[in-house]
């Protein structure tokens, strides 16, 4: 089984230095691209592989690149979205800390494809180790001629900078990330115009996830058919999956796209810890709908998870067990989302704290059936299109599915006027 993204990351997790990366074939793809391919050919190759964005939305990467207008003058930008803040998600961190040059190589090739002149790594504030590692990697890449003027002696130049955020979940959304990078408030922008047309400082910009960009060198080396062959399903490639919760071996693994939830849970995460029963899981991070044991054979690719009523998201599963209160679980999530709302649009700014307060009241034994109606109302009205960006709709996904699958738990809180899971 091939694991292109993580194969060279030592078990210790210590970062591959430039020489080590080069020794395992690193920067060969870049060399080849600059020698042999036009920017359009690079984009065509990525399109051909049908690489879908690994940040959560699953949009075709090659397609995204092709929206950069061809005939505009002035700077263009490429941004690696390394602001990994989705609760339960730690896949990019593995790549950032373990193989920084793989990301850099992917970024340089991607930047070449869109003819960007400046690239940024926008990194989560809390990833201190990754920031240190990336700082060194960028410096090494400059020293080795992979960055800066006339890369590898060719007629292409690119500047690269690491930017660490201030810890706002909102910056995971690409347009809010761009505002933040400009020094403005991290509020999202309306689309259109898309960042490909008017992004950073109003110039054409591509924002891609770390995992997505890390795949680019491999696609350049091995081609689209190889990429597709790695997968079990129509969505090509491998994917970094993760599992957290009361399982025996929580962790992250690079697996063929389309493994089932069952395989992930039982084979890789080692099954539930003794004494805990599986009740459900958020398959792709905090902002995805619960799936339950009825869904264990769902294939974890974009279409498969969607058909089951949730989203692949980041592919990192958060497991709910039978001894954790689902209301408390969701309350914790809504607390996070309410706090991370940027405050720009009304439904998110005012609605999320409301749901948080209701869930807290339920946990405290003060909840009423009318509160459940209010929660239902929010899950319906904080839908996509009603709010300015996807934060609130994402926040409603675990809540609406919890209300669906764990309704009896909610009602028990009301009937018993306390949290039935409380141990005191």
């Amino acid at each position, binding site marked *: 089984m091939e694991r292109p993204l993580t194969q060279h990351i030592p078990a210790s997790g210590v970062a591959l230095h430039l020489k080590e990366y080069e020794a395992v074939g690193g920067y060969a793809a870049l060399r080849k691209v600059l020698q042999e391919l036009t920017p359009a050919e690079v984009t065509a190759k990525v399109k051909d592989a049908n690489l879908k964005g690994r940040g959560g939305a699953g949009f075709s990467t090659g397609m995204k690149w092709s929206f950069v207008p061809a005939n505009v003058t002035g700077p263009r930008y490429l941004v690696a979205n390394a602001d990994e803040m989705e609760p339960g998600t730690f896949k990019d961190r593995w790549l950032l800390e373990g193989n920084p040059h793989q990301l850099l190589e992917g970024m340089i090739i991607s930047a070449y494809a869109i003819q960007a002149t400046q690239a940024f790594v926008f990194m989560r504030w809390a990833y201190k180790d990754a920031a240190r590692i990336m700082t060194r990697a960028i410096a090494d890449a400059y020293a080795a001629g992979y960055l800066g003027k006339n890369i590898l002696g060719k007629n292409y130049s690119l500047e690269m900078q690491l930017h660490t955020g201030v810890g706002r979940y909102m910056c995971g959304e690409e347009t809010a990330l761009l505002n933040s990078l400009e020094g403005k408030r991290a509020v999202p922008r309306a689309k*259109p115009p898309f960042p490909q*047309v008017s992004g950073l400082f109003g110039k054409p910009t591509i924002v891609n996830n770390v995992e997505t960009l890390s795949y680019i060198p491999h696609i350049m080396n091995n081609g689209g058919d190889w990429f597709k062959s790695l997968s079990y399903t129509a969505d090509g490639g491998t994917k970094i999956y993760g599992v957290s919760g009361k399982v025996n071996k929580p962790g992250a693994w690079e697996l063929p796209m389309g493994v089932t939830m069952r395989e992930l849970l039982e084979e890789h995460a080692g099954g539930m810890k003794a004494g805990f029963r599986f009740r459900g899981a958020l398959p792709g991070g905090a902002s995805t709908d619960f799936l339950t044991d009825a869904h264990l054979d769902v294939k974890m690719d974009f279409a498969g998870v969607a058909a089951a009523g949730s989203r692949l998201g980041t592919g990192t599963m958060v497991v709910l067990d039978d001894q954790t209160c689902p209301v408390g679980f969701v309350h914790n999530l809504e607390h996070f989302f*309410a706090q991370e709302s940027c405050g*720009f649009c*009304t439904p998110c*700014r005012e609605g999320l*704290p409301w749901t948080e307060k209701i869930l807290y009241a339920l946990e405290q034994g003060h909840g009423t059936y009318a509160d459940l109606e209010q929660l239902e109302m929010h899950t319906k009205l904080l839908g996509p*299109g*009603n709010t*300015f960006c996807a934060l609130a709709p994402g926040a409603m996904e675990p809540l609406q599915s919890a209300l669906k699958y764990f309704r009896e738990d909610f009602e028990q809180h009301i009937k018993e006027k306390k949290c039935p899971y409380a141990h005191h």
Partner: protein
Amino acid sequence: MPIINIDNKTYEVKEGKNLLEACLSLGLNLPYFCWHPALGAVGACRQCAVKVFKDEDDKKGRIIMSCMEPVKDQQRVSIEDSDAKKFREQVIGWLMTNHPHDCAVCDEGGACHLQDMTVMTGHSYRDYHFTKRTYNNQYLGPFLNHEMNRCIQCYRCVRFYKDFAGGKDLDVFAAHNHVYFGRQQEGVLESEFSGNLAEVCPTGVFTDKTLKQHYTRKWDLTSAASVCQGCGLGCNIIAGERYGALRQITNRFNSAVNGYFLCDRGRYGYEFVNSPQRIKTPMVYHGPSELSNGIPVLQHIHRRMKPGKTIGIGSPRASLESNAVLKELVGEENFYLGVSAGDHDLVSLALKVLQQGPVRAASLQEAAAADVVLILGEDLTNTAPMLALSVRQAVRRIPVEEVINTVHVPAWQDAAIREAVQENKGPLYILNVQQTKLDELAKGAWHTAPDNIARIGFGVSHLLSDKMPEVTGMSEQGKAIAAEIAEALKHAKNPLIIAGYGSGSEAVIKSAANVAWALHDLGIDAMLAFTVPECNSMGLEMLGGHRLESAVDRALNNEADTVIILENDLYRRLNQHRAEHFFDKVQDVILLDHLYNPTAEKATIILPAGTFAESDGTLVNNEGRAQRFFQVFSSNTAVQESWRWLLQIAAANGHATLSSLKHLDEVVSHIAVTCPVFHGIDTLTPGAGFRIAGQKVPREPHRYSGRTAMQANIQVSEPKPPEDPDTALSFTMEGYRGEPPSSMIPFFWAPGWNSVQSVNKFQTETGGPLHDGDGGKRLIEPHPNGQTPFYTEVPEPYLPLTEHLLLVPLYHIYGSEELSVHTPGIAERIPAPYIMLHGEDAKRLQVANGHRLHFMDNGHHYTLPVIINNTLQQGAAGIPVGLPGVQIAEAPQLIKV
């Protein structure tokens, strides 16, 4: 034009608009908060949700925000869709979770957009039962009250204050449901346009603090359409009164003039009307007591008006009617313009340029649409503030046009446009004697003496047209500046050249005219904007009269025994010694004015003249636009319009033509007939006989309360309301309830729209003209023959002298205007008198900041503290003009320190 289907009815709508604008323009009710016609759309509040359907078969549809959706042909939209309605209702539910529900004690109560929208969506039951978030409020200065708990986070305040008006000290802080709108630290809001926040804010966060000092419910105001008295731009205002006191000024939308906004001098400068220094009764002084006792004041005046020895002095802050009647009363040969020699020279020159030249004067809205702007010798923020706001919009025109073509989003999508535009600005060039607030927007800003500014202006015109004289001896820097400006102007389509009274230099005005005319010769549609100092400066110059100086000379030659002074303080027009000599010589001074002032001290007879709020009249703004202002309330004192006093004097004297005139319509028609320049001013508004359905237009809304009780402490029976014989307005609630003619709208109100947002209902389309078009009539149009006379006398360059300093006038929005300083809030903002020096001059004179410097001006001694400003031309000394205690009549001039 696209055809759209809204709730199964088809409508033709204007292309390029968003759906919200289209719906509102059609007269449909759709709630909104964050969208504003002047600020565009950002999609923050989510209040204007509607459903759109793909086609006739689509029954499900999807909810979209109408403000963010461009109209498309064949679009199917539903406002009434139950999902959309439910969502809109819930948006209010969300906004209300933390709102304090303190309408009963809120200044906005009853005139609140949030209340209106709440009712419109049907939200009536509160489901939220948790505690509310609270905020601390800030002290923001004398103009605005801050009550953050009421905030619904629509972001309009920062979008207006920062994005539109260029303010720096109001911002949005924090995140999620703790978003805070205010200053980093509490303190006076710096922007000269801050007062607009009271109207931009859809609820009671920012409210008018001057209104709060003498609060009344807004529906309890007696209001009328009026025109701002604060400067020469003639912004349209609504003034409201209760219990005999003027309570507030709000914007009166005029799409050709001020649009939706006012400056803070205009909004807050009204309190002189309520001043304890008001003259309320006629007074006869200095005469033998037996002569004044029991004799009507008009008799006294009649006795003193000796034929051939009575002169009249008009006023640039009095109405055209009052000035014209005075002129006719005393006779043309005896009528003097009550303006300083300097102001007269500048305004008459500006008038001549506009009347005789081929280039038209720009309205404020035309100015905002200019593509290249050149400002010569004006600190607009202080001399004509709303024109500065127009220039702020103009510098965005070219960058916005460019990004619309590359980013392909409509101009109303404000956040996207601002993102794409970034800091790009269109060409703006400023030449002024010192730094101005607009410099930050300029491609080039240079600071030099007025004569040097004029020389560069002449240099530009020479580069544009070889008919113009070459400027000899120009410095290399001057040549480079002129070349840069000329190059930008050459490629312009609608360039705007601004000059005026600010520099105190005729040469600057002439050079501005030359530049505009040269552009005109090149076939470019150039515009001119000349600032003028006072609300009727232009009207008075158009009426015409002799120079004030010659009135003084005539008195000194014993040829003037009696002078009738109209709404004027001659100590602001003449230097003190000349004024003293004048008053020593004339035997009788008959003054008509509002407030006691130094001139009143010299008066033998004083007549209480109505302010704009107690008068009807006409003003002509800097553009030559004549506009009517209406009396707001009828004073129960002897106060009446100056023109009415003057007509009564004329009648007492048996004046040949004036005796037959009594009411406003007659006066206006008389002026329109006898003065060809004022032809058409009798058509500005419908006359007094105008009725709709047999009724007058009420100055009071039907919600007006307390009329039977408010005088009950004096008399139990309700007094008869005053009559208004002059206009088609009534002083009561009674009258026609529908929409009046646009020129006489006393307040904006429509069913369900109790706040100022109701102006939508009076417009042909949102943000567009009022139903009857823009108020006012332009009296000056470019000369049809298109002759370009061109000025040829280029001034010598100004070089710093060792013995003298060149005194240059510096104007202040708060302080330089005579009447507005009587508002306590404005008085608080007036700078202390100072003399501004360049650092090098200060070094030479061995003075530092705060040191006191002594100099003489026409024999008058001044000792003022020094302010050092290195953007000031070296060798010049800036002096604040018009400030209380600073009576410099003539600048520029040379002084010795």
